[in-house]
């Protein structure tokens, strides 16, 4: 789950490729990812880390907020 301002849904990018939208649960193959959002005006500029071992019922939550 990648959280941002619910009033301003953004595309979620994993390693530069669009994989879904903010504030919905997303599925991804296990790997190391750099997560960013479309557009600008958000912080942090990116999130980097391993995404593995998560479950639909126990997702990893990555938070972005307005700059």
């Amino acid at each position: 789950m990648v959280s941002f301002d619910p009033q301003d849904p953004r595309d979620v990018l994993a390693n530069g490729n669009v994989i879904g939208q903010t504030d919905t649960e997303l599925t991804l193959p296990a790997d190391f990812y750099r997560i960013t959002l479309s557009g600008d005006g958000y912080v942090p500029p990116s999130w980097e880390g391993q995404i593995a071992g998560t479950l639909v019922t126990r997702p990893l939550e990555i938070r972005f907020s307005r700059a």
Partner: protein
Amino acid sequence: MLAALALASCGTTQYQNQSLGAGGANPERRSIAPPAPDRPVVLMTFSGGGSRAAALAAAVLRDMKGTTYVAADGLRHDLADDVRLISSVSGGSVTAAWFGLHGADGLDELHSAFLARDNMQTLELDAVNPITWFRLAFTSFTRIRAQEDLFDERLFHHATMADLNQPGRPFILPNATDMAGGETFTFTPQRFDDICSSFDALPVSTAVAASAAFPIALSPVDFKNNAVGCQGSIGSDEWAQIALSNPFSLFLNLPTYRDARYTNDLRHGKYPFRDIDYLHFLDGGIADNLGVKSLRSALIAPSDHAGGLNAINRGLIRKLVVILVNARSDPPSKIYQEPDTPGVIGAINAVVSVPIEANTANSQLALEALLTEIGKAADAARALHAGFAGMQIYGITVDYDQIPADTAEHRALRDQANLVPTSWTLTPAQLDVTEHAGRFLFERHPCYRRLLADLGATPPPGAEAPVNAACVTASAH
């Protein structure tokens, strides 16, 4: 003739790809998303096996055209209209490319123009023609070009990949094997970015011939890697650089790491694993005879421009249908009746075929496991805010091993289907039994039957009776 063939390697190699000029690009114009969310998304793989594979795939597509349902728009559609992607190998690439150009309405013409014709005679007549010897000996003409010419003359008539790469058309992904590295090379705009070559300019017959360049019998299809000094406007390889520069990917996701490494090598990137200046393609079946790797990438790889993962996460795919058409035949082996140690020919046959069969079985299992995993995730997410929540999965395999031995009629179908050779020529009886086997296996599959029920669809006239077995990839309602 032999002298001419021996001299053939002395000719100047002709590279069949065109470099991307300044500003040239490889746009991807297709989309995996369905025209409406209630319409199923059908992804298919067609295996190799010469005209047997081409005919089996065509029989399944014809059955899909005969499977109709009324969608939410109030219009009657057929299942062949819902095909969004076909990953293909060798003989399967013939039908895949034809379908991509002409749709299901063109299947009758495929039958008359290719499947029912004696294509081997054309190739053999060409082989004994003195003009061919001259071309082999003194020009850049190669053995694979004869097959390529056959495809172009009989089927594709100078069509290029641009004709396949059009909005609204399905992704057609012919797969070849990079004979030096053993990598699967899939003919996509994205991969052509890596070698700085024009995807749209490539003749369809070249892609299909590369996918079907059976080793030893045919020479490889040759490409030059134009990545160094590329002037074209190519896509970013950020995903590959991230995969290669962190210490975790090779433990978390080795297949993606390997793909990133191959992408970096093709682009002549930093710290290459291999220096790739030229590519020589053989039959895609050597690396992956089912074409599963490309389908899997299109479905779940974040970096794949087919965008399957994005469509799943956005809830654009509500019914995912994955159909594997495997034309692997298993003719009786005389080795079982031989008390003596098999000779060199038997050993060579085993070395060529057994690993391909084992690889095929493994990749089939891996895809089935992936579909089951996605289905479970979709089921578990029903109460959550996830686009893929409740997505239905239908995994359908068409494989001669699924012809039962319960009746004399079924045993005869099984035995006759397994006797059909791998060749570009089938007798009318061989063609008939192959098409019959395709219809039989597809129409009886429990997941096809489940799909029919869920869509409220009508099967083709005279369809086989259903088998009372569960569709294991579909979640419970």
